[in-house]
């Protein structure tokens, strides 16, 4: 029993972080059809924003966090406006083209961060807090923050999508863009909103991630890769799917890591994804165009 609790606790920390990132990714995908691979970049941009505010300028945590989130949102909106909207207008850009575009953006972000901040990793040891024991399970102060904040955020987010008018508008665009426009919804604004919200989530995830796992410019790619796998497993375009996908992947990672060997975790999480996709080609909770 102890072991199970411990393993569960191991699953929750990265699981929740990636759930947040993947949820944002799913949102943008369903509303805009864009595979926003640069989201991993937005996450680390937020991390570096926090670093600048907190470690370089010695601002208090809250202001540094606001700075980080603001930068994340600006980056996300910039990417949407300058790249995706332009490509939409310009004509037919295939999936391969979009992939190349988003990956290029991600690489540019990483290199800019490398040039500005250098390659040495940044850490926030003092913010991790002390270790607390809850029976067999161990959490640091920061990990408790993650365990509390992220579920709250996710719940608020889902409620937002389900209950508010804006949420419905977003879902309308996700379901069928042309019809939504007919009904008077400005789809362009909705796309911007989707990017904004997803970047907000990515921003928070970025801060939490940086404190928990430290920060260096080349992390963006790994975060992106992990994000897509978890999102696709759960069903791209579904927030619940993003959460489920992240948690299940992390479960397999923990089990493989414990009972077999950590070197095979990527392989087994892929295997899980493969098997699930064979049975449910749209992911666990994926339906073609829904968000929630």
């Amino acid at each position: 029993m102890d072991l199970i609790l411990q393993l569960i606790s191991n699953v929750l920390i990265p699981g929740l972080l990636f759930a947040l990132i993947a949820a944002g990714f799913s949102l943008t995908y369903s509303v805009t059809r864009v595979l926003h691979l640069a989201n991993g970049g937005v996450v680390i941009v937020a991390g570096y924003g926090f670093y600048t505010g907190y470690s370089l300028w010695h601002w208090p945590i809250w202001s540094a966090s606001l700075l980080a989130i603001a930068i994340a949102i600006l980056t996300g909106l910039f990417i949407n406006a300058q790249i995706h909207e332009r490509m939409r207008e310009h004509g037919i850009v295939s999936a391969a083209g979009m992939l190349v575009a988003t990956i290029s953006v991600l690489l540019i972000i990483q290199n800019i961060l490398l040039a500005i901040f250098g390659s040495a990793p940044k850490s926030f040891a003092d913010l991790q807090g002390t270790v607390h024991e809850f029976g067999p399970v161990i959490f640091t102060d920061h990990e408790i923050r993650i365990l509390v904040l992220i579920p709250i955020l996710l719940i608020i987010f889902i409620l937002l999508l389900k209950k508010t008018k804006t949420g419905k508008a977003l879902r309308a665009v996700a379901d069928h863009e042309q019809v939504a426009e007919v009904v008077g919804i400005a789809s362009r604004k909705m796309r911007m909103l989707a990017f904004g919200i997803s970047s907000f989530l990515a921003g928070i995830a970025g801060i939490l991630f940086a404190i928990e796992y430290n920060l260096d410019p080349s992390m963006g790619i790994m975060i992106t890769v992990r994000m897509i796998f978890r999102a696709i497993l759960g069903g791209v375009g579904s927030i619940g799917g993003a959460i489920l996908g992240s948690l299940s992947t992390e479960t397999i990672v923990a089990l493989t890591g414990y009972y077999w060997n950590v070197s095979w975790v990527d392989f087994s999480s892929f295997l899980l994804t493969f098997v699930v996709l064979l049975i449910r080609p749209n992911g666990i909770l994926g339906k073609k165009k829904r968000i929630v």
Partner: protein
Amino acid sequence: MKNNAIWWIIGIVIVVGLGYLIFNQPNKTNDKKSESVATAPVAPKVVESSEVTIGWIGPLTGDAAAYGIPLQKATMLAAEEINAAGGVGGKKLVVAYEDGNCDGKGGAAAAQKLISINKVQIIIGGTCSGETLGFTPIANENKVVVFSPSASSPDLTTKGGDYAFRFYPSDALAGKVAASYAMDTFKAKKAAVITANTDYAQGLHRVFVESFKNAGGEVTVDESYNSGTTDFRTQALKIKNAKVDVVYIVVQLPTEGIALVKALKDQKIVAPLLTAEILIGREIAKNNKDVLEGVIGFEAFFDEKAEGAAKFTAAFKAKYNEDLAFPFMQTIAYSEGYLFKEMIEKYGNDGVKIQAALAKLTDWSGGGLKNMTLDENGDVVWKSFSIKKITNGDVPSIGVFDMK
């Protein structure tokens, strides 16, 4: 039908042209045949110029830039100092820096460019073993000296060729030291080893596991994690439950190492934590003093307080406002600038002559290094390792280990 004919014509023209180009040139040495070939045209030396150019290869982007760039900065400092003092035999020293991307193909492209376009006779680099092994064949064919400040794969000893040298000891040594120490000092019977899945780390891993087993120990947990892994809670849990006497941690990137040690400490593991040299990098120890407190590392014995080294440390801090992240490697990267200044002044910017001189290098001191000797494989002869323990953000030596 017409289209087809055009393709055929183009194809034939290209093939014939190439054939002419190729078979009308003097033969280059085949790397399988023995070296005694008469007509090997070598990169023509730059005849008269007010500059001397040498090459430098290392990862300037990507996650390995965490070592590549500090090494680059060290060499840049050396070049600056040398030029301020009059240059190399009166000529300005120019270092052409290339990004090898810590990758075989990147290293090869970088080296080919440096040799063909910058016409270098000497290359300081690569940083990563794979990168270096990607271009040693090209260097050997062109008789260009390669001198790595940090590549540690045992493969470089056997596959690097006559023109490859290094001042950095092969992994084959450091792994043994850690195993012996674990056995002797902690009387360890069971060990857990957790290693990054990279060439450098795996080299150390292999040697440690072999040595530990040969001395009668048992490696009960042997994990290799992939680069980019951020979460180590499960591994820490596994290690805790295995109740080992000692944990040997071999990381490639500091970020992962810090996360790993933190996870181990969170699990309240009391077994001593041994590591190689990345985690005891000074900046890393300083910035993560709480997490890394008590970690014991092994690095090639290097006296940082010795005059040349201390001077370098101070100059580096003055120029870049940062401490040396990897004192030994960076000192090597710095000292190589001085090594080649000496070599070029004595023998000219000539790969063949310098290679011959380096093959006999004994007791060389310069830059921040002292008494460096190279063996017949181009490897540095190294007998002593420092045992260092991270204490309160500092990394003092707690002993010296001499290899028999």
